[in-house]
């Protein structure tokens, strides 16, 4: 083996990742362009709203409530090391709204919605349903992709808001029932401490993560290989890519909002 072979392999891997990134970006731009250009498919959009938004509420709520409760316990026990137990409401609020709410909702959407979109579209591809759409004069980007991306763009911020509130409520229940906090003081401290910037950052992150989740599901579904193995690979790849991109986007957006 040539001594430069590992370097060559590394170069090819980097180029492959950059090429994938370029293809996904072009796909995302195309998908967003189709949101604004007719024809529109309101039925598909309504179904996507239901699937991405309404049906994700239980998993988002459960994730948020347990996280908020655990966060309150952690902050209380950690704060006790330097007599700062009283900061539980403020830190739970800021932790949920700025970070844990958007990130956990984003990851749950990646698990639930990205996988479902990728599997559905990939199955449609391998069973020639996408070809059938084209022969019926229906653009797959408009019929399948645009409604899902728009639904995720609009509903995931709402899910994040719900997750933030439920997470804070989880922290409140634990703090009041188990840690002996005064209910009124806890709520006052939570409300007083949060700034509009925290809430805006949470919602913007939700919109970005929702878009990433839907675009990844659609992209990997449309690029699926043949057969059950192709559908499996598309689904796995979509969730991996969505999760990593959500965490990377979270880092960038956090820097954008809070490093100034």
């Amino acid at each position, binding site marked *: 083996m040539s001594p430069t072979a590992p370097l060559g392999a590394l170069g090819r891997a980097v180029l492959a990742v950059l090429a994938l990134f370029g293809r996904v970006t072009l796909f995302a731009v195309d998908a967003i362009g189709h949101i604004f250009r007719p*024809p529109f*498919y309101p039925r598909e959009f309504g*179904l996507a709203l239901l699937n991405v938004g309404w049906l994700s509420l239980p998993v988002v709520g459960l994730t948020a409530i347990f996280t908020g409760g655990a966060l309150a316990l952690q902050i209380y026990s950690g704060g006790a090391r330097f007599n700062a137990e009283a900061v539980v409401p403020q830190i739970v609020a800021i932790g949920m709204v700025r970070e844990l709410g958007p990130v956990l909702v984003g990851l749950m959407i990646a698990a639930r919605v990205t996988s479902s979109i990728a599997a559905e579209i990939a*199955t*449609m591809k391998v*069973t*020639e*349903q996408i*070809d*059938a759409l*084209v*022969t*019926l*004069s*229906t653009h797959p980007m408009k019929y399948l992709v645009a409604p899902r991306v728009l639904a995720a763009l609009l509903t995931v911020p709402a899910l994040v808001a719900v997750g933030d509130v439920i997470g804070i409520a989880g922290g409140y229940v634990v703090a009041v029932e188990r840690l002996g906090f005064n209910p009124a003081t806890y709520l006052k401290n939570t409300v007083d401490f949060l700034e509009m910037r925290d809430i805006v950052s949470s919602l913007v992150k939700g919109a970005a993560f929702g878009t990433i989740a839907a675009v990844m599901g659609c992209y990997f579904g449309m690029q699926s290989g043949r057969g059950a193995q192709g559908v499996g690979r598309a689904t796995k790849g979509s969730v991996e890519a969505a999760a990593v991109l959500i965490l990377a986007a979270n880092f960038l957006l956090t820097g954008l909002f809070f490093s100034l």
Partner: protein
Amino acid sequence: MITLENVNKSFSDNAVLRGVSLYVPKGSSMVIIGGSGTGKSVALKCILGLVTPDSGRILVDGRDATQGDRDAFLARFGMLFQGGALFDSLPVWQNVAFRLLRGALARPRGEAREIAIEKLRRVGLTPDVADRFPAELSGGMQKRVGLARAIAAEPEIIFFDEPTTGLDPIMAGVINDLIREIVTEMGATAVTITHDMSSVRAIADTVAMLHGGKIRWTGPVSQLDTSGDPYVEQFVHGRAEGPIEAVR
């Protein structure tokens, strides 16, 4: 009506079509035969623009198929896919009336449903099937629904991709007869790809054999048994021995 001129298509290093030239006259029913993996489906998909040829020209009514209004071009076609390709998320009637519920051919919902039920009846299905979902139907019923969808907007050109694959001989006969009747009564131009010889004899006016990425033989169905072409003879009689390798 449909002309393919020296069409080539490769996937990576696999040259599937190597200069396919073919003419399908208006109002005729052509059947393209050939072994599995010889590029029959790719040829059809090239005509529809689902697959882009590497080179060559495809003309429909003398006009380049890749130029002009794509929606108007596709509105002239109906296609029955090999596996049906019915949309799982829609009930049967909405599958059949898909084209009539949206786009340039959109009709009021009630009218579209009536047309769908009429087309279902035409392919031998009762109206109670209309509100079922594709997954609740047998393979033969799915093919019939696919056929109803292909003819719902009364297209000028209909493609049938392996219409009898996976069906029992009786159901295959029913589908073959339906295709022949429908194509005749609509006056449509039909292209069918199959390797089922009973389909060929029931559906075809003319037959073309695709082998090695090229059209080996073409002629009227009446001359199929006397073609004199060793490839066609081997295929028609299903012989393992002959110029076509049994293991490809």
